[in-house]
């Protein structure tokens, strides 16, 4: 056996890139050249000479007791090096983001189809797969609980979880967890008069299907046993330190012996917040003494990460005849599946933001997250706000119709603005240009209607080149919707990031190295880190160090928070470095510190230009800082009141959709989006986020659903789970507004999630307008339109 090295092929290197670009510029990605050359190493590209391949045996049943597991036949397969079960987990047998309720490997009971039961390491992935198929598991199959409301009908009848799960230190908030029943969390929001009445009332029930993140890069990583008895894990993930804490617990090891480095990440969108192969690969590596690579295929990926919660929602809106909202009452049920994952926080978001960006004096919301035997659900871009936006925006359109008002007028009349009260008793303390976002959309020109009949270009028609219509039966609809999302972690969570910044002269050139643990998942945070360092330190050459646990936690790459929080940390660390450099320069030159600044690789003042090489010599100036946004508060458990959210993001969409009302086929003709981003740190990347988020929202509206029947997933492949292609996506018009948030670094506002929230509801509104149908379930299918 060869001695493992700690530099597998594909281990991340320092990123520099082409250089140039400060805050506000379209700076180029430092990893861009590697990515277009095929040289950027994703988790699935990692490789070592003597590595083994690990695979997972998963439960075929959504709910069953394991009578016995016989690993003997698998161990007998030539080329197999290890077969492990829960008996081989040395530390905590369970893990979880907020509640440690999920087994590393099944213990006695499996609670969802695809739950990991055993692991195999072998010298070829196919050998490992074939060996895993020979593990004999004897199941006593039970009837699954598959409906969230049914599960909650028996709050103390605990079928899904029989034992109390410990609340870990990872809990994101002071959530009221109910491990004794199928209720994961219930958030109550109570404001004003619970019995308020109104002139005009609309009631609706809505359903949202289960969406998959469908990131393209599969779950993958490489675990390498270390000489100190610990393990090095290279993994594609969203939050290295929360992974590290859970892995340490499972392995029974201290953090210094479990070292993580971010491998290249092929998209995330929330699906990598929870552990997947992390502990499994470490267990196999420690057991075999060899590096072990695990990389899911697409089918396993559908079982290997959490999905977006399906939702069932009942809303009642009351308004005056003039169109002023009087009250909103809502009951929201989210199916959390078999394990908690981030369900408590999703329930918090859906509950507190579930009525949308509107001012309502009387609010009564109940939001529930339930355990069932469906696939576990957790984080996905938009995190609780996506589901509710379909409901509250459908309600606003229904109310407008009832009032005989224009839907945009009704929204603007009730729109939140700076100074408005929220349902949770907060006052919106930064710009909230909801009405302006809508007005700007309304002012944009509408796309022309396509030629029909003999002149029709089939590619412009619903059904496309399938030649299903030349315009007969096609009606156009236009719909609007607004997104409202908290940025960063809420409800009193200690949300912080750590940045280490070093300034030195390398080869005669001033060089900044930025080291954070913040996961780059494709969004461009590595670019933003460089832009901030260039801006604050006046140095062009900025190197981004590999993301690893050798520096403190950066928090999660989620909740639209990294540019804000890690950006804030990098800015603060740069400021600390700058202060020390300027003090040095002041001592050298006798100039007052206050007159000095850093510019273009030198300390400058009126009549002074001192190159950094002369100020620093061979010394490096380094600072490591933890940075926090303003603290938030837990919600009052009975009223849901409290300063729970630090910042809100707002976006609005207008969708134009042509619908073949006879066949139920549709073509989204154009999407327009307006979004306030406070300050666009990298405008090109901001627009990219808006375009990508819009596509994911459109996907949920009209095509994307993980179909689950009797607890079983029926479409775990890209053949059967459809995401938008370039033919499905229309041209987009985008306007980016920059109203600074005075509380945030550079005035910026988190960008990534908001456009994912409003695009789908706008598409639904357009289809409703075209068809006159209520369409209360997403994704909309042809049979919903044809009613067949």
């Amino acid at each position, binding site marked *: 056996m060869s001695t493992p090295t700690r530099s597998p*092929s*594909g281990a991340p290197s320092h990123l520099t890139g082409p250089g140039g670009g400060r805050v506000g510029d*379209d700076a*180029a*990605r430092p*990893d*861009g*050249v590697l*990515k*277009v*050359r*095929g*040289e*950027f*190493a994703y988790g*699935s*590209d990692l*490789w070592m000479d003597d590595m083994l391949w690990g695979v997972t045996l998963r439960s075929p049943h959504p709910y069953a007791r394991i009578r016995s597991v016989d690993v003997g036949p698998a161990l007998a397969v030539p080329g197999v090096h290890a077969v492990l079960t829960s008996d081989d987990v040395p530390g905590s047998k369970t893990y979880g983001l907020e509640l440690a309720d999920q087994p590393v490997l099944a213990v006695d009971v499996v609670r969802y189809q695809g739950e990991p039961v055993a692991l195999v390491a072998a010298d*070829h992935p*196919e050998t490992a797969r074939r060996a895993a198929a020979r593990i004999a598991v004897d199941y006593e199959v039970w009837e699954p609980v598959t409906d969230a409301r049914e599960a909650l009908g028996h709050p103390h009848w605990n079928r899904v979880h029989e034992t109390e799960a410990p609340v870990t230190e990872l809990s994101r908030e002071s959530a009221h967890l109910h491990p004794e029943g199928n209720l994961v969390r219930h958030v109550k929001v109570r404001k004003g008069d619970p019995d308020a009445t109104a002139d005009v009332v609309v009631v609706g029930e809505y359903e949202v299907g289960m969406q998959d*993140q*469908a*990131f*393209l*890069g*599969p779950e993958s990583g490489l675990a390498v046993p270390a000489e100190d008895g610990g393990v090095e894990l290279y993994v594609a993930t969203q939050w290295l330190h929360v992974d590290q804490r859970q892995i340490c617990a499972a392995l029974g090891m201290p953090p210094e012996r479990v070292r993580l480095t971010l491998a*290249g*990440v*092929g*998209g*995330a969108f929330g699906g990598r917040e929870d552990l997947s192969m992390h502990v499994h690969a470490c267990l196999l590596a420690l057991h075999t003494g060899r590096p072990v690579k695990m*990389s899911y*295929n*697409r089918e396993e990926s559908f079982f290997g990460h959490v999905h977006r919660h399906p939702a069932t929602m009942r809303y009642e809106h009351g308004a005056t005849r003039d169109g002023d909202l009087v009250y909103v009452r809502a009951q929201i049920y989210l199916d959390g599946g078999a394990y908690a994952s981030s369900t408590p926080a999703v329930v918090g978001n859906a509950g507190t933001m579930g009525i949308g960006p509107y001012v309502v004096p009387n609010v009564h919301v109940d939001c529930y997250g339930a355990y069932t035997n469906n696939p576990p659900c957790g984080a996905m871009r938009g995190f609780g706000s996506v589901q509710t936006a379909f409901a509250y925006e459908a309600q606003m359109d229904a109310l407008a119709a009832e009032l005989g008002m224009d839907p945009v007028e009704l929204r603007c009349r009730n729109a939140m603005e700076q100074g408005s009260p929220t349902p949770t008793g907060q006052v919106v303390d930064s710009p909230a240009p909801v009405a302006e976002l809508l007005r700007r959309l309304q002012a944009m020109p509408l796309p022309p209607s396509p030629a029909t009949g003999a002149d029709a*270009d089939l*590619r412009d028609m619903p059904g496309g080149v399938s030649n299903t219509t030349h315009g007969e039966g096609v009606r156009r609809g236009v719909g609007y919707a607004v997104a409202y999302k908290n940025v960063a972690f809420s409800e009193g969570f200690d949300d912080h990031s750590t940045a280490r910044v070093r300034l030195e002269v390398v080869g005669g050139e001033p060089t900044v190295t930025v080291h954070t643990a913040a996961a780059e998942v*494709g*969004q*461009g945070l590595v670019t933003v880190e460089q832009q901030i360092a260039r801006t604050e330190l006046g140095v062009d050459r900025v190197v981004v160090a590999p993301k690893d646990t050798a520096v403190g936690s950066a928090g999660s790459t989620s909740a639209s928070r990294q540019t804000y929080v890690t950006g804030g940390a990098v800015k603060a660390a740069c400021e600390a470095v700058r202060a020390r450099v300027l003090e040095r320069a002041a001592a050298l030159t006798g100039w007052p510190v206050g007159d000095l600044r850093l510019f273009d690789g030198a300390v400058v003042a009126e009549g002074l230009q001192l190159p950094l090489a002369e100020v620093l010599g061979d010394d490096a100036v380094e600072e490591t800082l933890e940075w926090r946004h303003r603290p938030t508060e837990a919600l009052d458990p009975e009223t849901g009141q409290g300063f729970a959210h630090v910042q809100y993001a707002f976006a609005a969409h207008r969708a134009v959709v042509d619908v073949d009302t006879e066949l139920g086929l549709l073509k989204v003709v154009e999407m327009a989006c307006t979004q306030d981003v406070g300050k666009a740190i990298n405008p*090109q*990347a901001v*627009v*990219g986020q808006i*375009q*990508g*988020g*819009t*596509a*994911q929202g459109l996907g949920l509206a009209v095509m994307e659903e993980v179909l689950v029947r009797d607890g079983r997933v029926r479409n775990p*492949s*890209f*053949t059967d789970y459809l*995401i*938008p*292609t*370039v*033919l499905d*996506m229309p*041209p*987009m018009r985008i306007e980016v507004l920059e109203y600074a948030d005075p509380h945030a670094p550079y005035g910026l506002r988190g960008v990534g999630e908001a456009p994912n929230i409003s695009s789908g509801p706008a598409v639904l509104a357009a289809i409703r307008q075209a068809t006159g149908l209520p369409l209360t379930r997403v994704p909309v299918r042809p049979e919903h339109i044809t009613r067949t």
Partner: protein
Amino acid sequence: MRLTCTVNGTEQLVDDVWEGESLLYVLRERMGLPGSKNACEQGECGSCTVYLDGLPVCACLVAAGQAEGREVGTVEGLAAGGELHPVQQAFLDAGAVQCGFCTPGLLVATDDLVGRALAEGRRPADAEIREALAGNLCRCTGYEKVLDAVRLAADRMAEEAR
């Protein structure tokens, strides 16, 4: 089995290939060319698009043995030396690269599309670009900047060819 083929202009010979391995697996795991990506392994996503005797194919759907004696071109072979290919540069300049996992396949598909159109003395129209790239899934960009990149690449390559 033994496999011999030409990859990016270089003769390759690999032994001990299991007959069930795909061309994608052999490229990635046996030839040290992981640029072609493994996002679905059933021909739906296009991330593994490579040239096989000059035609774009999903390498995951080609059995390794089918590549015997043939010419394979991957993303690693697009650029000549240290310079980027105009299609690669256009994807960067247009901001069409986010996570980048779909990028290698899109680059090969775009190179094929633009090459064919320019050979006919024209630039690809938007509807043609959409048709040509409909087999390449991207989850990050919403495709707008991918379209920008293809147009930009076609413009620059047409200019170069003049």
